[in-house]
């Protein structure tokens, strides 16, 4: 009993309309990496918020080192040595790494900052755990991986013993994920106890000692990772067997729908072009995937295609019509659908109801607007209800649910429903499965393939190599704003793609005519 660093016994937390945690028990051993696995809305975040003092449970007790404790707020949690790296970092952008680390626990003497000691301690910790960060760099200038290490240092600087990582790999490149795994193992070896929240099974298999699975707010079980398989874990999580292999037939490419020639997008503040001289085609009935490490111009390429950013030069031909200088609305009406990478920034108006979000791309059509410019509320409601049913979008109050209160996976489903239902010629999907659970990933992949089989041209941008290999019919690799390779997913290995993605190799990407 005494070897549990943290024990949460029979925790129950209710919210109006939902029981977020229903009698959940979680036992974290000292020095172990304990994964917490569950779909979106399974209650992982709620459980961690209870542990962190953000919520008070209605029932249940928390023990630390065998002693019962009350955690009323994050300060209590900190005092008990519990630290957390949030999914969205809580850093001050215009402060240095060191300033962020000492924020809130600044060493002072007579009201003046004494940073020398703090710097020494940070450097020691950084060395001990191989967290290479420059203490004087500004947060806004460093990579996401380094920002995460700053968050880890923040916990270590406060001598936290229990470290919570909330979906830490969602924002990292493959390289950075490997580094993080190593760091976590080092931390555990030094006696820190780690709670690792994730729904990526391969990471859990690789790094964790034990794994607790939650489903719909209920405790499913705890297993030793060494004794289980990813398949077993995923059926525990979803409650049914999930196939990892995406079932799809052969592609049947038809005529060219999207034809991009010599496209360039200028960089911010006069830096070099972020998209430089890109040429490619997407045909109806095929899924073309743009692979690459985050930040190599994929986002800007899509902004250029959808009209969110102006082109510096080049042409975009959609279904035989030059749309290079058409506004966003016109491109949408002509048959472009866009599932954006950031659903909070672009994909949804979070303070709007679900039904209003469902008509965001079509509210101006006669189906939803009278000739005097009044909204047809009843048609909107009916339309939203149909989409909710067809795409299984779950929410607490149906069409009138405020989008902000929905889980990430269901928000994404709503966006996908809206964009696919528009019946586009070209479907652009940017990281459509980011931050959604296994069940939803399967659903989204099926939808993309169904769209392909219905004769749509699908352009997929993904950072997940599994997704790139499984879903696409053709892979284009993007590196530093240029296309550096074209591959058939049947004939290329992940390792080979990696070489192109990191710029170690490149080849000429030919247009269709050049191939003939």
């Amino acid at each position, binding site marked *: 009993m005494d070897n549990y660093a943290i024990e949460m016994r029979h925790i129950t937390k209710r919210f109006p309309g939902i029981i977020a945690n229903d009698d959940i028990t979680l036992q974290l051993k000292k020095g172990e990496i304990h994964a917490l696995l569950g779909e979106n809305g399974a209650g992982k975040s709620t459980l961690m918020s209870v542990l962190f003092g953000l919520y008070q449970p209605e029932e249940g007790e928390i023990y630390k080192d065998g002693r019962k404790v009350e955690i009323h707020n994050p300060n209590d949690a900190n005092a008990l040595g519990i630290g957390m790296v949030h999914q969205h970092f809580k850093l001050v952008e215009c402060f240095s790494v060191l300033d962020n680390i000492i924020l809130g626990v600044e060493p002072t003497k007579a009201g003046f900052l004494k940073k020398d000691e703090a710097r020494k301690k940070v450097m020691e910790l950084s060395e001990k755990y191989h967290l290479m960060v420059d203490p004087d760099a500004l947060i806004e200038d460093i990579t996401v991986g380094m920002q995460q290490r700053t968050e880890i240092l923040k916990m270590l600087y406060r001598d936290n013993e229990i470290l919570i990582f909330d979906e830490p790999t969602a924002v990292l490149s493959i390289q950075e994920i490997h580094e993080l795994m190593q760091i976590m193992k080092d931390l555990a070896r030094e006696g820190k106890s780690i709670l690792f929240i994730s729904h990526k099974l391969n990471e859990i298999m690789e790094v964790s000692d034990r794994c607790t699975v939650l489903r719909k707010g209920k405790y499913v079980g705890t297993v030793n990772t060494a004794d289980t398989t990813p398949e077993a874990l995923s059926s525990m999580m979803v409650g049914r067997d999930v196939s990892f292999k995406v079932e799809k037939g052969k592609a049947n490419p038809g005529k060219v729908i999207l034809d991009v020639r010599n496209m360039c997008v200028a960089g911010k503040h006069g830096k070099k072009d972020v998209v430089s001289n890109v040429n490619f085609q997407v045909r109806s009935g095929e899924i073309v995937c743009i692979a690459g490490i985050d930040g190599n111009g994929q986002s800007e390429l899509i902004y250029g295609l959808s009209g969110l950013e102006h082109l510096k030069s080049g042409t975009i031909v959609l279904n035989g019509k030059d749309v290079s200088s058409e506004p966003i609305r016109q491109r*949408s009406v002509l048959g472009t659908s866009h599932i954006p990478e950031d659903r909070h920034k672009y994909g949804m108006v979070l*303070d709007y109801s679900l039904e209003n979000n469902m008509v965001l791309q079509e509210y101006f059509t006669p189906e939803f607007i009278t000739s005097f410019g009044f909204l047809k509320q009843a048609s909107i409601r009916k339309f939203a209800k149909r989409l909710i049913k067809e795409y299984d979008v779950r929410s607490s109050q149906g069409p009138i649910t405020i989008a902000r209160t929905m889980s990430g996976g269901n928000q994404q489903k709503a966006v996908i429903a809206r964009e696919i239902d528009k019946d586009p010629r070209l479907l652009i999907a940017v990281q459509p499965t980011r931050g959604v659970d296994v069940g939803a990933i399967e659903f989204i992949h099926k939808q993309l393939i169904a769209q392909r089989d219905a004769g749509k041209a699908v352009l997929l941008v993904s950072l997940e190599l599994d997704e790139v290999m499984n879903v696409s019919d053709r892979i284009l690799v993007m590196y530093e704003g240029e296309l550096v390779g074209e591959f058939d997913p049947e004939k290329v290995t992940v390792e080979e793609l990696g070489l192109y993605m990191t710029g170690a190799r490149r080849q000429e990407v030919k247009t269709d005519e050049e191939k003939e």
Partner: protein
Amino acid sequence: MKKKNKLYSVWTNHGVQSFIASLICIFFGLLVGYLVLLCINPAGAGRAMLAILQNFLYFPRPEVALEYFGSTLVKTAPLLMCTLSVLFAYKTGLFNIGASGQYTVGVGAALYLALKYQMPWFVCLIAAMLAGGLLGAAAGALKAYRNVNEVIACIMLNWLSLYTVNMVLNKVKEASTTYTGPLRTENPAALLPHMGLNKLFSDNRYVTIAILLAGLAAVFVWVLMEKTMMGFELKATGYNKNAAKYAGMREKRNVILTMFISGCLAGLGASFLYLSGIEQWSCAQTSVPGMGFNGIAAAFLGGLHPIGSIFSSFFIQHITSGGSYVDKMVYPSQISDLISSIIIYFCSFVLLIRYMINERVINKMGADILNTEEENVSDDEKGGEDR
């Protein structure tokens, strides 16, 4: 169980929460106001507070009280317009602190056309509206194209408009005073028509169609925001500029349009007051009229709802007018403004109080209801299908 659920839905209702929050704010405003009066002079505090709250009821004779009730309504109309101006911008994600400035240029346009060019009332009315709208649009354009925070732009435009209007109206002021000439003698055609409304208020000659128009404006704003495509676009732009752009809306145009409409409302409000003839503009004013600022408090007190605004505007005008009945022998003459300001200040806490109510209701009652719901889950699910 049904009863509990019903109670819960009543307590979580937005309108109910706003109403209770508004009452709480008013209560605390009155309490602190009373304490201030006690500190200054304990002897007259009770009577002074009563005078503020009574306003026109201060007069024992019903026909006199009715006449003064009419005057309060006359001043409520412009305040309501400023409230709607603030509310409309706020609902679309902008903070229009420039309602005062837009109101001021509205006064300038209406009175200048009335006194200099002898224009009839409807021309002056439209001119006031457009002047306010254009000033609002200017702030909107700065926001849309140069990313200037609308609060800063509006504050500066407030001062610009005050001094410009003083300068312009200086040309049509009375020779012996700093006030603009009275419309009743100089251009009666510029006075808003009564349409018999004055008869309802003991022949109060200042009661005009402005009162009705302001009420209609509240309904118009509600319909525009909730029922039309334009409202849909403007609100979407306000909540999330990026998503609006992504959905193909012209987000820059929408920001300017929002501020234009907002400015039009404030400008109209100015004409409602000055074209009733109840006041003359002093060209020696050194601050913008408080209407626009009181509009901010009234908007929040009204629960950010156009119809709620009608009542909150009336209340704020009621205590502002009531302030003038405080005994000036006992208290200094600034006391009326001070007390009404204190009450108005507390009115802006409505959102905070509403938030507190919401948290409390969900924490206290939500759990209870869930406990009982669990036992009846199967029944509930059947019912849910039908709905």
